[in-house]
């Protein structure tokens, strides 16, 4: 008897597990590649490093993963941060300028850069908390102005990077695996532990779920938001540094362009609702992987960059629809009554 009860419980929790849908999307992409070109999965070893599409998915997805991690927290509080793309540009520009033109070592340049971009994120939060400006507007300001700031920093130039330590961030390998991936993994673990082993996660979810009630429960929503926006800014800046390192140059015009949208997509696909509340850090990582896998698959299939967003959008919409309990119910109702009706 208890066994039967158990199986229904696990069945239910499987369907309700929000991670199931991005995983399903990923399975779809993998299946597509298995049919059209199994060589997609070939991984080779060159100079002791792993090469191949699978590795690329992770290494190129690393930046969006960083953005998505920060974005997850911001969205969980009921906000959104549109400035992450611009902050990426600032982060890359700052670090590159410090190292290349001012001659600082990476160990000095990187922390200073992170503090500055974290402060930018903090200002976003301050506008939301103290200015009571809607997050989408508050962060729009930095989204528009940030790229100009990045251009000012580099004097409107592309800054070439030669510093080996800097380049290692984007091109280095440890045990055959790209350094950027190790970095993302460490940051993810640190965040997951510091959020779920403290009460921060629950408090953030409470704020996102009903901010008004959170005040009555004694939660300092303002403080949490400031922290969250600052973390989001710092991670965006770090993503910019990785981007600069991987292409050996900081290009303030192009870096992080439209990346805020990728980050938001990754979060939503990963099962965190845009309305705030419940969030899933790991879901966002999966979302970022799915996005990158899709992009690479489409390039491999010869779809031009101009057309690629269309199939990408279809998959994203599909995953989001499947996440909606209501939509799933409607589908099951249609299939259930399809035979009976008429």
């Amino acid at each position, binding site marked *: 008897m208890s066994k039967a009860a158990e199986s229904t419980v696990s069945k239910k929790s499987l369907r309700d597990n929000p991670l199931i849908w991005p995983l399903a999307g990923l399975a779809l992409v993998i299946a597509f590649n298995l049919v059209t070109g199994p060589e997609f999965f070939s991984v080779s070893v060159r100079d002791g490093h792993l090469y191949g599409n699978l590795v690329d998915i992770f290494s190129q997805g690393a930046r969006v993963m960083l953005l998505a991690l920060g974005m997850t927290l911001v969205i969980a509080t009921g906000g959104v941060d549109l400035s992450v793309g611009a902050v990426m540009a600032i982060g890359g520009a700052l670090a590159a300028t410090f190292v290349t033109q001012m001659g600082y070592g990476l160990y000095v340049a990187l922390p200073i850069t992170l503090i500055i971009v974290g402060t930018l994120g903090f200002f976003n939060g301050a506008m939301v908390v103290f200015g009571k400006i809607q997050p989408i507007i508050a962060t729009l300001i930095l989204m528009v102005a940030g790229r100009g700031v990045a251009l000012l920093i580099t004097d409107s130039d592309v800054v070439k990077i030669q510093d080996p330590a800097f380049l290692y961030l984007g091109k280095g390998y440890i045990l055959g695996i790209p350094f950027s991936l190790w970095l993302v993994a460490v940051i993810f673990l640190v965040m997951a532990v510091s959020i779920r082993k403290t009460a921060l996660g629950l*408090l953030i979810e409470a704020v996102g779920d009903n901010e008004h009630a959170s*005040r009555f*429960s*004694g939660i300092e929503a303002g403080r949490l938001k400031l922290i969250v926006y600052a973390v989001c800014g710092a991670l965006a800046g770090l993503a910019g540094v990785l981007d600069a390192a991987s292409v050996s140059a900081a290009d303030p015009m192009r870096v992080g362009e439209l990346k805020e949208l990728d980050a938001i997509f990754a979060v939503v696909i990963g099962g965190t609702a845009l309305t705030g509340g419940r969030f899933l850090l790991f879901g966002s990582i999966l979302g970022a992987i799915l996005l990158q896998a899709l992009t690479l698959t489409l390039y491999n299939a010869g779809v031009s960059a101009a057309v690629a967003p269309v199939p990408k959008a279809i998959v994203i919409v599909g995953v989001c629809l499947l996440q909606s309990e209501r939509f799933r119910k409607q589908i099951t109702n249609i299939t259930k009554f399809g035979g009976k009706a008429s």
Partner: protein
Amino acid sequence: MLFPAESTIRIKSIMSNDSTPLLKVRGLSKQFGSVQALSDVSFELRAGEIHSLLGENGAGKSTTIKCITGVHRPETGTVELNGQLIAPRSPREAELIGIGTVYQEVNLLPNLTVLENIVLGRVKTNAFGKIDWKDARNRAKSALSKLEMDIDLDATLSTLPVAMQQLVALARALEVDSKVLILDEPTASLDEAEVENLFRVMNLLRDKGIGIVFITHFLDQVFRMSDRMTVLRNGRYIATRDAKELSKQDLLQDMLGKAFEEMQSRAGELDAIAADRAGRKVQLEVRGLGAPGMIDSVDLELREGEVVGLAGLLGSGRTECARLIFGVDKATTGTVDLKDKRVKQGVPSESIRDGIMLASEDRKAEGIFPNLTVRENIVIALQSRRGPMNPVPREEQDALAKKYIAAMRIKTSGPEAKISELSGGNQQKVLLARWLAAEPKVLILDEPTRGIDIGARAEIEKLIESLSEDGLSMIMISSEMDEEVRCCHRVLVLRDRKVIGELQGSAITESAIVRKIADHE
């Protein structure tokens, strides 16, 4: 198309009185998660009758209504309106076919104006889609005039007190000329004059041949207003009876399935208890607390284990007083001291850390976290009291949830169910559990039994009594004076944002409170 052949239907429904029912509900069943909210519920509403739907919390009244109005889709069962099967897919669709609803908790749009809320979704437009505001205004005005209420049509809804908002919701339902009007706890937040006014309108509408489904926990109102009543218990249909044939005792028997001696007043005993409490140490001292537009300088001493009531009409400053003490609104004058510690003004998180907590009257907006679990909703205040870096261990959370679900008899499929799946009364119990779990020194209860049925109300009153015995100091606000009479050791009477008098022990009676309010000039 908006009002299909309305006049013919009206005539037909009056003619069909007693033969075919106006609204016929048969065999409704509905499940939420593993909770069977309704099983096989049936009842009939005739044209021109007021039909009460009665039952305890979680008996399935609200769920039944929501199945009729298209909020929920029942798993089985049918609804017929004028002999025709209907299955509205949303409350809006139900409205358009003539079923207007006013819900227990105001379901309007707070940022829109009164006018917009009344006519929303039903405005006439010209060929270019421009809204005919003149027509809308006239219709809204006439709807409000049926209530004999003078509400500024251009006021933003959220600036009005809850009672007024409820009247706006009612005006909205009246505006469509509904054939069936469903009133879910419409009187819960109205004062006496407003209730009388509502009853007058209800009688008027009944005489016009409208069928009214009336849900309320006030039994006097049930007997006064209804023609027939249907009782539900645990999601099942129990009986439908003529109001004239039924005694209060029989009704309670139907509803509770158990006797109700515990509901008797205990005013006599209270005298001794009140004297005992008055001799104890001061727990909370409020001096000259006030803020413009909220309340003038309030002084209040609350002793250990004492329950002090704030009585007065809506708008007398009861809730405002509570909000200032808790600090969710900032006082401009005065001080709050807890034992010898000065409490920082206007910072609820500090108040909670010091041990002052407020269970707000607005459960939906200021209470629950709808998507969090029952367990999380219970531990959240304790957690914020301890601070984010000092998490309540999961075992402790589970133990707390288990303890309160059992102790307060919270009806839920388990501690991990979303709180929004629970009925209103059970949500209220979860909120009380939240405050108790956070170990308050002073607990302010603003309308703790609002929208709650008789059984649960008795439980909550008993709980207040035993907490007081354990030494917890409480401030209680209730629109129902009999409740304050039963629960409070001392009552402060407020009027026009001032404290105008005080009653103690057995001197606390409804008539004494009313006299104080009325006599004061």
